[in-house]
């Protein structure tokens, strides 16, 4: 019952927080600019054109009315129309979602599969040369600018060594498939040439995204394992003569990973909301690149549509992480 109440309380807070987020984006787009209509109309518009557009967009009505209208349209999934592509922004985002999801999944898989074992090893051999070396890597991971790391990887692996393509998602036609994830589609279609090509394209952007995430996971795993190693049940299991590998990989890891799991969720949310900078560097045709192109073209509607989308996704993922946490960790239910 306790768990249920907690879940309900989280769910109840979701709509107001979302509404608050919409209020913030509304203020940014309608209230902060001196004249949002002039911004939309562009610099060459005549005053008459601006006035016509103002009443057409409904910007001549009181702000509260505009806000209700804004929320109402968002509730119907209408993020507005892009000034550049003249298509609904929701459609633009949807057509780019698969690319962002694929990149996020590969990056997260990379950082989890490498980061968690490294974190465990780092904790087991605390203060060893290996631990210190790993600490240098994790500290670097949190201090390096993604866009710079991406450019340096391009410089070395794509330009100098020629091992990977410079940017993009695939040179030729995408493999036929239903998921829109090129790696999965290529496997399903048995098209190994396309699979290798897609893998080559995703390698550098995924590595760029994975590096800071990996650094975070190593830190949290190391801290979690060190904490659990000092607890009584580990001493007991040692005394019972359980093999160290079983104690570490089965018992310690399971109770040490709670905070790591939360971090994985948060990182996933951040990356799914649009890896704005990394996608831009690699011309990855995902949501992040769309956002940046919209900035460059001053496609104001699209930038706001992206902000709403990113906020909603991030909120939803956080909610799921919290709920999962409650289900997995009994201690959460008690407090």
């Amino acid at each position, binding site marked *: 019952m306790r768990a249920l109440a907690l879940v309900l309380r989280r769910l109840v807070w979701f709509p107001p927080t979302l509404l608050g987020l919409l209020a*913030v984006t509304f203020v940014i787009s309608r209230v902060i600019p001196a004249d949002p209509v002039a911004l939309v109309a562009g610099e060459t518009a005549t005053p008459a054109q601006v006035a016509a557009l103002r009443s057409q967009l409904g910007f001549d009505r009181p702000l509260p009315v505009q806000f209700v209208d804004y929320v109402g349209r968002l509730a119907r999934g209408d993020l507005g129309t892009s000034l550049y592509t003249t298509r609904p922004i929701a459609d633009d985002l949807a057509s780019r979602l698969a690319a962002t999801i694929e990149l996020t999944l590969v990056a997260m898989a990379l950082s989890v599969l490498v980061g968690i074992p490294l974190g465990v090893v780092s904790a087991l051999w605390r203060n060893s040369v290996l631990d210190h070396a790993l600490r240098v890597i994790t*500290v670097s991971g949190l201090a390096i600018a993604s*866009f*710079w790391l991406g450019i340096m990887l391009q410089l070395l692996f794509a330009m100098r060594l020629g091992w990977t393509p410079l940017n993009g998602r695939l040179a030729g036609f995408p493999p036929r498939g239903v998921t829109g994830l090129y790696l999965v589609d290529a496997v399903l279609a048995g098209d190994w040439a396309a699979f290798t090509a897609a893998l080559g394209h995703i390698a550098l952007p995924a590595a760029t*995204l994975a590096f800071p995430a990996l650094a975070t996971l190593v830190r949290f795993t190391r801290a979690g394992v060190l904490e659990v190693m000092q607890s009584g049940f580990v001493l007991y299991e040692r005394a019972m003569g359980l093999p160290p590998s079983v104690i570490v990989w089965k018992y310690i890891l399971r109770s040490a990973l709670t905070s790591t799991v939360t971090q994985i969720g948060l990182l996933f949310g951040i*990356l799914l*909301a649009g890896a704005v900078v990394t996608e831009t560097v690699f011309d990855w045709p995902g949501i992040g690149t769309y956002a940046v192109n919209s900035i460059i073209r*001053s496609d104001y509607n699209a930038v706001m549509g992206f902000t709403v989308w*990113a906020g909603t996704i991030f909120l939803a993922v956080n909610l799921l992480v919290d709920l999962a946490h409650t289900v997995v960790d009994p201690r959460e239910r008690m407090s």
Partner: protein
Amino acid sequence: MRGALFVLARLARDRSALVGLVLILALALAALLAPVLATHPGDVFEIHPAKRLQPPGAQHLFGTDRMGSDIYSRLLYGARITILIGVIAVGASLAIGVPVGLAAGYYHSWASDLLMRVSDIFLAVPQVVLAIAIAQTLGPSLPNVILALSVTYWPWFARLVYAETRSLEKEVFIESTAALGASPLRLIALHVLPNVASPIIVRASIGMGFTILTAAALGFLGLGPPPPTPEWGRTIAESREFLPDAWWYAAAPGLAIFLTVMGFNLLGDGLRDVLDPRIRRAGGAVRASAVNADV
């Protein structure tokens, strides 16, 4: 004063904190002495098309850029912009977030809940996304970058101070001071604030690194101060069309960002170890740097 000396002495014994301190001092010196250290101080504004894209050498330590300006000299002046952005943005975030957190934590009313919900909204979106939206709306300039970063960073301080204040309220010394008739303002300023100062200081150091990283990302995306401002992120963006030949053009400013952010992160971690004994006792707990992806 003795407290500060104690903290410094402890920091000096922690090797990585010391490295952080040295990096930050180097940055501060670079910014302060830019006119003296720069080999071509005029190159912030001057261009020399005949000397464009020259590799690093005795004449130009880090080479020249697409305008033939000396990259090393421009980096030194860029340090001033970096420090300016970091200090003002984190300062403003402190000025908003700390009072909000103290008030919301001390008083139990609907207003406390409202304040915390408002900060939750800002924390609900990746900082770089909101900062992009604000900077885009206001237009690319230095004050607008600082504004965008401050507006999106203060909730971190509000959350932190709120949680720390709430955890203090059951303490005997707070209750007894209140029973002696101390006014809320006196209680908050003289008794609560000093006890929540440590986590604030740690967070501020980490926040400097984080803010500088986000500012560089904004500059890279073209939302920072316009050229010819020698902002580091923008310099990296400019360099891209000249790769792979002019590798130094991209490498030098990226390294400057890296070392600066590293300095603040290491110092923040070290400060946490010194100021927050709870963490030390737990044995190798998570160090302070926040989750940071894609900036």
